[in-house]
């Protein structure tokens, strides 16, 4: 609740800075302060167990320490994104204030997705989260690819919105006392109403669109590739993870009783996502596009949390959110400071930019899932939850095989950075690698290692009350 109010307020405030402040750096500082304020507001609610604002919302929002803890992780990642790539947001175009404003509006949607208690608020949350993203994707107006990406995203996004609405209507129709509250959806003890089943499938498809799970991922590579890199970073980490939180909250609270039935659909989606994400990523030459596909592949791993849907899966989801977001924000941050970003442009980076290369290596190791990094812990929790839920060892084996395949494309970047000589004729330039940028990268790397060694540091907050 606190986060919804503060982020909406910050969004409006940032809009006005564009009109009243001439200095381009001011919005950035204000945005960082706003993100920290957002974090604090959320932390206070987590600490006190009740929001600062007492508005009667008829129980349409419902908080738990899990959802607030999860939200804290996402807002924390937003702060890190602002610290690392704030200057890249300024560089996208003229309307600096508006970009930050849109990002805060997205965060408002994220906060609603974390706390909704009715299907209406789920819809509101997902829409508030999506519409600013369409604008952000197309914000680089001089780049045709960016505009194409925005249009594609908008069309596909509206399509999935339609499906979501249809699903909500079906479920509403199938619920006897005509209620939107997610807990009151009646899945039936013996036979589930066909309305509910159709509604469930439509909602599953719609949210799979949002988290770019195959076979509903087609928009993702082009959109992630076309959008300005810093917004790709935002979209493919914080926003995607928010989609998973909404996914878990909805399916656990309303359809938890028939988990065994829709679990089979999740298996299909998981394997398809892992397959398409990993296999296509192998063939990419552009690191940005490779990261786009890898983000699909990682979504496949996160789907395992929906498959298992037990306590450990929910813990694993938070860890995964933190691990994946931190690593991807770091890597996208580096990519956004490069003019060109094919794999061969990373050649010899270990020599020319040792700090950048070293931290990038840690992020890549974390994404691969090497022990002592956050990525390992999150994968461990995910895999354990799956075996715990159903003893479906074959699914875990499929997941780890794809994880081994993912080493192939992540390590290609490491190989380029350390084992190839820099291009001497056409050296790639990284702009503005200053002490600040390096320190934030090191901070991200340290966080990755800390979570990798002591994940309870984050998990403890999920059980605060």
């Amino acid at each position: 609740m606190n986060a919804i109010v503060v982020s909406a307020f910050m969004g409006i405030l940032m809009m006005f800075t564009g009109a009243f402040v001439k200095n381009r750096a001011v919005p950035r500082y204000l945005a960082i302060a706003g993100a920290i304020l957002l974090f604090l507001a959320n932390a206070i609610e987590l600490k006190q167990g009740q929001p600062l604002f007492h508005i009667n919302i008829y129980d349409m929002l419902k908080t738990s320490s899990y959802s607030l803890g999860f939200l804290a992780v996402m807002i924390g990642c937003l702060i890190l994104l602002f610290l690392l790539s704030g200057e890249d947001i300024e560089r996208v175009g003229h309307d600096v204030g508006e970009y930050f404003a849109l990002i805060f509006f997205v965060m408002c949607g994220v906060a609603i997705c974390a706390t909704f208690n009715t299907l209406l608020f789920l819809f509101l949350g997902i829409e508030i989260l999506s519409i600013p993203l369409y604008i952000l994707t197309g914000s680089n107006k001089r780049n045709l690819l960016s505009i194409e990406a925005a249009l594609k995203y908008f069309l596909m996004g509206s399509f999935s919105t339609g499906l979501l609405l249809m699903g909500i209507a079906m479920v509403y129709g199938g619920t006897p006392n005509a209620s939107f509250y997610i807990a009151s959806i009646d899945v039936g003890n013996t036979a589930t109403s066909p309305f509910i089943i159709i509604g469930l499938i439509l909602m599953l498809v719609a949210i799979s669109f949002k988290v770019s799970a195959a076979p509903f991922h087609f928009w993702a590579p082009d959109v992630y590739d076309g959008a300005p890199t810093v917004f790709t970073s935002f979209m493919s980490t914080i926003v995607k993870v928010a989609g998973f939180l909404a996914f878990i909250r909805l399916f656990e609270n309303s359809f938890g009783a028939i988990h065994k039935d829709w679990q089979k659909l999740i298996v299909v989606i998981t394997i398809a996502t892992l397959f398409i994400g990993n296999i296509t990523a192998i063939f990419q030459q552009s690191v940005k596009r490779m990261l786009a596909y890898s983000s699909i592949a990682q979504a496949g791993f996160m789907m395992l949390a929906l498959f298992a849907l037990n306590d450990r899966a929910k813990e694993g989801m938070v860890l995964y959110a933190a691990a994946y977001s931190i690593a991807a924000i770091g890597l996208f941050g580096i990519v956004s400071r490069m003019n060109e970003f094919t794999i061969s442009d990373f050649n010899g980076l270990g020599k020319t930019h040792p700090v950048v290369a070293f931290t990038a290596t840690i992020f890549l190791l974390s994404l691969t899932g090497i022990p002592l990094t956050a990525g390992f812990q999150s994968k461990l929790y995910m895999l354990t939850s799956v075996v715990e839920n159903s003893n479906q060892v074959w699914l875990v084996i499929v997941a780890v095989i794809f994880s081994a395949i993912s080493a192939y494309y992540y390590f290609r970047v490491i190989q380029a950075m350390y084992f190839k000589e820099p291009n001497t004729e056409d050296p790639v330039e990284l702009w503005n690698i200053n002490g600040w940028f390096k320190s934030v990268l090191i901070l991200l790397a340290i966080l990755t290692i800390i979570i990798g060694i002591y994940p309870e540091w984050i998990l403890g907050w999920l059980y605060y009350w």
Partner: protein
Amino acid sequence: MGEFITFPELLIWLPLIAGLLSFMLKKEGAAWTVSFVFSLAILAVSAASLFYTDPKFLAYNNVNYYYPNNIGNTFFVGLDGTSRILTFLTALVYPLIFLSIKKDEYKNASSFYGLLMLSQCGIMGVFVALDALLFYIFWEVALIPIYFLCSKWGGERRVQATFKFFVYTFAGSLLMLVGIIYVYLHTPPKVFENGTQTLHSFSYAAFSNAGLSAGDQSWLFWLFFVAFAIKMPVFPLHTWQPDVYDQANGPATMVLSGVMVKMGLFGVLRWLLPLFPEAVGKYNHLVIVIAIIGILYASLIAIRQDNLKRLVAYSSIAHIGLMCASIFALNITSMEGMMLQMFNHGVNVIGLWIVLDIIEKKTGAKKISDLTGIAHKAPVLTIFLFVIAMANIALPLTNAFPGELLMFTGLFEANPWFAAISGLGIVFVAIYILNLVQKVFYGETNTLTAAINDIGFSQKLSLAIIVVVIFAIGIYPQPILNLAKESVPVILGKLGM
């Protein structure tokens, strides 16, 4: 001492500190000195630990740090007979490696020495871990420094060869991780000292009493075995090895073949046998047959091999295959011999690699057909090589003799055919090792070998130590056998024998 810090902790943290220090030192000579001094200190610690084997010194040898966590893992490390043999081997070979490369020049030498020390940290961790998750973490972490070492310094195709190795082992270890998770979920609840409780735990005791059904054991066995077999490597999962040994730099190869391949054998002894006794009883003959096929296959290829490094790689596959077969013979004789031989093979193969590395650096050639008559120019080197070669053939008085004798006796007890067929391997070893010595060292010198000079003092010293160890254990293997005697009954006891 046990109050503050224990032997296994020192064995893990000292290499880590040395590695990090060496990274920070800009001066290459200083980095070498730091790494060398630390590796001597580690050797001293490891040697000291051999005198504290008595159960009353448990506090010096075992430590279990626990912190309340959701998943129930602890930092649990300890030394027993098997891990003492292997930690001592690891501690012994690093100073030798550093001595042998004292005069060599590597680009970015500080990172080179640093990575070497970090790899020692990971390997030590594997040998002392008594918590399955900790074991897994060290198992993978040991791989990362070696990956960078082999990819950064070495032959032209090193990056591809090392990456093949990495993917093989990474895939294998992930399969093992699946197995670990499955066993973990069948362990009993664990109560921590401060009263918190987790549903399951990763501790060694919990794992070996998980009470798995025979059906579960039979597939879990293979998940673990594949990971260990890739590391050893056992035919048909060996294909990464010749490429890596051929392309990687000398010291990395020494670490790989001297100690890292022992991680696979150690994994079988520490985890596979006690965890899945029923599956072991079911599959042990199958594994022996696979291992023996590997021995014959690798030996035959070694005979036809012209590339020196590949020759040693295949010879190593044959030797490891024999050790793998004797583990699964599952009797006291074969296991004791195998533990002794793990140590011996580590020492001998590192001796061989030091000699080959010297030859390659002096002549730039690694083909048997290009080299001849080195004995005329480097008589000291030749004497050392001769002893090491004899040890590889397992001649009496050398260290490999008692080891192989015990292994064959054990295999014979299991089934005379096993001993007879794998015995062919010994004949093949004599063929290709003597062939190597004869062609490379004797005969007339050629243009490549005419200009070389004999080895320097530090290289002499490291080879001399190896030769001393070879004879010492060849004449009096008892100290190592005593360590083996401590562990073997425990392992066989878990198997119900």
